[in-house]
C-alpha cells in the first residue's frame, strides 16, 4: 500500500524467440488460473495474466542465460509477494506447475540441463518468495501491533484528558457535588459542598446520607430517596435544609441522581446541591414585608385575607370561623387635632394591646388600614368564643394611652360575625363583618354588635326601597288615599286627611310608616310631599266644585324636613293658585316636635301660611313633651289627639278614667286657646259617643271610615 505503482515486468526486454514466447504465454495462462483466488490481488484477471506472463518470460530468459544464475528466480518469488500473492497456496501451486508444465510448454521436456536449471530456479523462487512473505508478514504484524498501541495510547490519552476534565469539574464546581454508595456511605464531596456544610471530606466520609436528614425535610424528600435507592427512579429534585457544622442552617436546591452499572443495577448516587440560603432569607424577608403592616408590625390585609381564605378551605361541615372587625371611635378627631404622629403612635399602641390580649393559636390580629383592625378566630366553637374575644378587646382598650404628654382615652366599635364555614364564603363574611361594625357604630359606639341576618335583611329592604323611591315617584307608583274627619255633633264630613301610599311592584302596597322616614333621610320627602300636596289640592278643588260650601278641607301631612324647606310657603301658594283652591280648604299637619323644637324661620313660614288662611294642625298631640304654655304663641288651629288615648275610651263601662281625664283636659285646654280638637283612632261607637260628650270637635278612624280612594269620600258626601 505504500506504493502507488504496479510491479509489472516489461516483456519486450527479454528478446526471446517467438515460439518460446508462445510457450511462455500458454504457461502463464495456466499459472494465472492456478493462483487466482488464493489471496486478494488488486488486478483484473487480464492484469494478473500479464503480470505472470512477464514473470514467466523472466524465468524462461533465466533458463537460457549463460552463465546460468538463479537470482531471477529469487526475484520472481519476491515479486509474487509484492503483488500480494500472499497465500502460501500460491507458492505450492507455482512450484508444482513449474515442475509439471513449463519445460513441456517450452518443448524442452527431455532436456536434463534445463531440468536441473529449472530446479535451481524453483528453489530460488521458493526462497525469494518465503523471504519476501516473511518480511511482509513481520512488517504487517509490527504495523498492526504498533497500531494497537497507538490506538490504546490515544484511547488512554483521551480517557485521561476526560478524567482530568471531570475531576476539575468536580473540584472546581461552584455547585456542591457529593457521591455516595447505594447504602448511603458518602464516598466523595467536592470543595463547594465542604464549604457549604462546614465539614471536611474525611468528616463527610464518616457519615451516611441518612445522617443528613433535617427535621424540616418534606416527607417526599426521603420517600423519593428510597425510591431512587431501589432503582425505581433515576433522579429527583427537592428543596432541602441542612444543618451546618457550626449549627447554622443552609437552604438548598438538591438534585439527586442514580448512577447504574452496565447491568442497570444501582451503583452510586450523585447529589448536586445549590446553596440558596441568601435567596431564601431574602424571599422570607420580602414575603414578611409584603404581608405585614410596617407601622404596627401586625399582619396586613393581604396576609389576613390569605389566612381567612385558608380557613374557608377547610372542608369539614363543623368548621367555624369568627371575625371581629374593629374600628377606633373618634380616631379621626385625634389624628386631626393632635397630628398624624400622635395618631400613628396610638395605632401602634392599639396594635400592641390587641396582639397581647388576643394573640394565640388560631387567632390572628391584623391591621386592615387606617384605624381598622381585624381579629380572625379559626376553629371557634360558637358565638360565645368570639364575644369573649370582643369583650376582652374592649376591656384592654379601656386604660388611657399616654403619648407625648397626652393622655388619650380610646374606645372601639366591633362588628362580630361567627359562623360555620360551610355554605358561605370569606368575602361574605368580610362584608357582613363590615356591616356589623357599622351597626355597632350606629348603636352608639364603644360596643360590639353581633351580626343579625334579619336585621341585615331589613336594612337591605330599606336600602332597596330608598334606592328605588325616586324612580317610583317618576313612574307614578305613589297614590293618595283619603280618610274623613267627621264632626261629632252632626256626623258631617268636615275634612279629609290625605294619606300617601306606595304601590310597590315588588313589595305590594306600602303604608307611609314604611317609607316616609326613609324619604326624610334621603331628602326625597320634599318632592314627594310636594306631589302629595298637589294631588290633595286637586282633589279638594274637585270637591269644592261639586259640593260648594259643604266641601271638606284636605289635611296634608308635612314632614319635619318639609317644614324647614325655605321654598315651603312659595310652593304652597303656587299649588293653591294652580289648583284654584282657597287656602281655607287646606290644612297642614305637623308633629309636635316639628313645631315645638323649631327655630324661628320655620315658625315664620307657618305664620305666613296661617296668615294666608291655611289651617295648621298638630298631629299626634300628646305623645311628645308638649310645652302647653308655648301653644298659645303658635299659629295653630287644631290639635289632633293621638290614637293611643282612645284605648281608654273604648267601652262605656270599662273606660280608663285616666285616659278619659287626659282627653277631657286636652279638649278644655284647646278650646281655651281657641283651637279645635280632632281625635284620631276612633274605632267604636262608644268611643265616638264619649268624645262627643267630652266636647271633642271631630273624630277620625275606622269607626267612621277607613282610608280609601276619593270615590269613597264622594259617596259619603252624597250621603249614600
Amino acid at each position, binding site marked *: 500500500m505504500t506504493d502507488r505503482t504496479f510491479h509489472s515486468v516489461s516483456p519486450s526486454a527479454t528478446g526471446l524467440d517467438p515460439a518460446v514466447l508462445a510457450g511462455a504465454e500458454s504457461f502463464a495462462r495456466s499459472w494465472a488460473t492456478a493462483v487466482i483466488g488464493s489471496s486478494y490481488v488488486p488486478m483484473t484477471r487480464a492484469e494478473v495474466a500479464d503480470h505472470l506472463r512477464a514473470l514467466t518470460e523472466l524465468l524462461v530468459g533465466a533458463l537460457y542465460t549463460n552463465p546460468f544464475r538463479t537470482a531471477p528466480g529469487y526475484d520472481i518469488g519476491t515479486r509474487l509477494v509484492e503483488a500480494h500473492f500472499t497465500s502460501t497456496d500460491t507458492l505450492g501451486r507455482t512450484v508444482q506447475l513449474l515442475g509439471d508444465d513449463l519445460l513441456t510448454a517450452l518443448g524442452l521436456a527431455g532436456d536434463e540441463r534445463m531440468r536441473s536449471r529449472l530446479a535451481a530456479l524453483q528453489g530460488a523462487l521458493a526462497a525469494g518468495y518465503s523471504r519476501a512473505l516473511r518480511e511482509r508478514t513481520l512488517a504487517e504484524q509490527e504495523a498492526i501491533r504498533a*497500531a494497537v498501541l497507538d490506538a490504546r495510547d490515544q484511547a488512554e490519552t483521551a480517557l485521561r484528558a476526560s478524567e482530568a476534565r471531570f475531576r476539575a469539574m468536580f473540584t472546581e464546581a461552584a455547585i456542591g457535588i457529593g457521591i455516595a454508595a447505594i447504602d448511603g456511605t458518602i464516598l466523595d464531596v467536592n470543595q463547594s459542598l465542604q464549604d457549604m456544610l462546614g465539614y471536611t471530606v474525611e468528616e463527610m466520609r464518616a457519615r451516611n446520607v441518612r445522617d443528613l436528614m433535617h427535621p424540616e425535610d418534606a416527607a417526599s424528600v426521603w420517600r423519593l430517596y428510597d425510591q431512587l435507592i431501589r432503582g425505581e427512579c433515576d433522579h429527583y429534585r427537592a428543596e432541602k435544609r441542612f444543618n451546618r457544622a457550626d449549627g447554622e442552617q443552609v437552604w438548598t436546591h438538591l438534585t439527586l441522581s442514580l448512577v447504574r452499572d452496565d447491568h442497570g443495577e444501582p451503583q452510586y448516587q450523585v447529589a448536586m446541591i445549590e446553596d440558596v440560603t441568601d435567596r431564601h432569607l431574602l424571599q422570607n424577608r420580602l414575603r414578611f414585608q409584603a404581608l405585614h403592616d410596617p407601622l404596627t408590625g401586625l399582619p396586613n390585609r393581604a396576609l389576613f385575607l390569605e389566612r381567612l381564605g385558608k380557613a374557608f378551605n377547610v372542608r369539614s361541615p363543623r368548621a367555624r370561623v369568627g371575625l371581629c372587625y374593629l374600628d377606633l371611635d373618634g380616631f379621626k378627631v385625634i389624628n386631626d387635632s393632635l397630628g398624624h404622629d400622635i395618631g400613628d403612635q396610638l395605632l401602634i399602641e392599639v396594635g400592641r394591646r390587641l396582639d397581647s390580649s388576643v394573640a394565640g393559636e388560631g387567632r390572628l390580629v391584623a391591621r386592615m388600614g387606617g384605624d381598622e383592625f381585624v381579629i380572625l378566630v379559626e376553629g371557634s366553637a360558637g358565638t360565645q368564643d368570639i364575644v369573649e374575644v370582643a369583650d376582652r378587646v374592649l376591656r384592654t382598650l379601656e386604660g388611657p394611652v399616654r403619648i407625648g404628654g397626652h393622655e388619650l382615652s380610646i374606645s372601639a366599635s366591633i362588628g362580630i360575625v361567627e359562623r360555620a364555614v360551610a355554605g358561605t364564603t370569606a368575602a361574605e363574611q368580610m362584608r357582613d363583618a363590615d356591616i356589623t361594625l357599622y351597626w355597632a357604630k350606629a348603636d352608639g359606639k364603644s360596643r360590639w354588635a353581633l351580626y343579625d341576618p334579619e336585621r341585615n335583611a331589613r336594612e337591605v329592604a330599606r336600602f332597596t326601597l330608598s334606592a328605588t323611591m325616586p324612580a317610583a315617584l317618576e313612574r307614578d307608583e305613589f297614590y293618595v288615599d283619603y280618610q274623613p274627619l267627621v264632626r261629632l255633633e252632626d256626623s258631617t264630613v268636615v275634612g279629609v286627611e290625605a294619606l300617601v301610599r306606595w304601590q310597590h311592584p315588588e313589595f305590594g302596597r306600602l303604608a307611609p310608616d314604611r317609607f316616609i322616614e326613609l324619604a326624610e333621610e334621603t331628602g326625597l320627602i320634599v318632592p314627594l310631599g310636594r306631589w302629595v300636596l298637589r294631588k290633595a289640592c286637586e282633589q279638594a278643588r274637585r270637591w269644592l266644585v261639586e259640593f260648594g260650601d259643604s266641601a271638606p278641607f284636605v289635611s296634608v301631612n308635612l314632614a319635619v324636613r318639609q317644614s324647614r324647606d325655605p321654598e315651603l310657603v312659595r310652593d304652597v301658594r303656587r299649588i293653591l293658585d294652580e289648583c284654584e283652591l282657597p287656602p281655607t280648604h287646606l290644612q297642614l299637619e305637623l308633629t309636635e316636635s316639628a313645631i315645638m323644637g323649631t327655630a324661628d324661620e320655620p315658625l315664620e313660614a307657618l305664620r305666613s301660611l296661617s296668615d294666608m288662611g291655611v289651617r295648621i294642625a298638630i298631629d299626634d298631640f300628646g305623645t311628645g313633651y308638649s310645652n302647653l304654655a308655648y301653644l298659645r304663641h303658635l299659629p295653630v288651629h287644631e290639635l289632633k289627639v293621638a290614637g293611643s288615648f282612645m284605648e281608654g275610651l273604648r267601652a262605656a263601662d270599662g273606660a280608663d278614667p285616666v285616659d278619659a281625664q287626659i282627653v277631657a283636659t286636652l279638649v278644655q285646654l284647646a278650646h281655651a286657646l281657641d283651637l279645635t280638637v280632632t281625635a284620631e283612632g276612633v274605632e267604636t261607637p262608644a268611643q265616638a259617643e264619649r268624645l262627643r260628650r267630652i266636647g271633642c270637635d271631630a273624630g277620625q278612624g275606622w269607626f267612621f271610615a277607613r282610608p280609601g280612594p276619593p270615590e269613597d269620600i264622594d259617596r259619603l258626601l252624597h250621603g249614600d
Partner: protein
Amino acid sequence: MERASVARVYDYWLGGAHNFAADRAAARQALEAMPELKSVILTNRAFLRRAVRYLASVGIRQFLDLGSGIPTVGNVHEVAGQVDPTTRVVYVDIDPVAVAHGRAILAEDPNVTMVRADVRDTASVLESAEIRKLFDPTEPVAVLMIALLHFMPDETDPYGMVATYRDSMPSGSYLAVSHAGFESGEEPFGWRRARDLYERQVTPMTNRTGAEFARFFEGFDLVEPGQVRIPLWRPDSPDDVEETAARYPGFGAVGRKP
C-alpha cells in the same frame, strides 16, 4: 487483543497479516464451515476495485469510504490514484486499530486521510475537520459503503443514515454499496454455519433481500447494470463470471444522485 475484529478477520481473508491469533482462529473456522467464503470475500473486494475505477472514469475525484477497514492492498486511493493521483480520499472506520494503522501509513499523503467515527453519527463524519479540509462541498463525491451496511440491523435505521448522507451530497454524486444477502430460502447451508460462527465470535450480521437492498438507493438513479449479484456488476472479463455468480450471497449497485 482477545476478541476478533471485523476489520482484522477481513484482512486475514484477503491474505493480509494485520491480524492476531483470535482473528485468524475465527476466520479459519468460518472458512472451514464454508470454503467458498474466501472467494466470496475476494469477489467483494474486487467489486470495490471495479466500482472505484468506474467512478474515477466518470470523473469523481472525491471519495468518502465508510467502513473502510484496515488498509491492506487495493485501497480506494490506490485504485483511484491510478487514474488521477490528486484524487482525495477520506476513510472512515469505527475500529480504533484500523484507524491508527491507516493514519500511520497515510501520514505522508496530503490527499488521503482517515477519520475514526461511527458512520451512524453522520454529523460527526460530515462535519469532521478532515472532510472540511479535503473536500470541496460543491463538487460531486462518491460515498462508498462496501460490506458495511450488513453490520447495521434495521433498528439502528441504516436507511435513514444513508438518506442523510444522500442529502448532504451535491447533485452528480454517487453511492456505491455492496451488501451480504440473498432471497429468502436461498441461503446455502455452509453460509448459514459460517455466519453463526462469525456472529458468535465477531459480530452479528443482517443479511438483506434484493428488495431490502434496493431501498438504500432511494433518491438515486442506478447506473448500468443496476442492482445485481456482486460478480455480475461490470465484470472485467467473462471468465470472472462463474456459474455460481447468480447465487452469490451478496448484492452490489452504484447509483447517481440526479
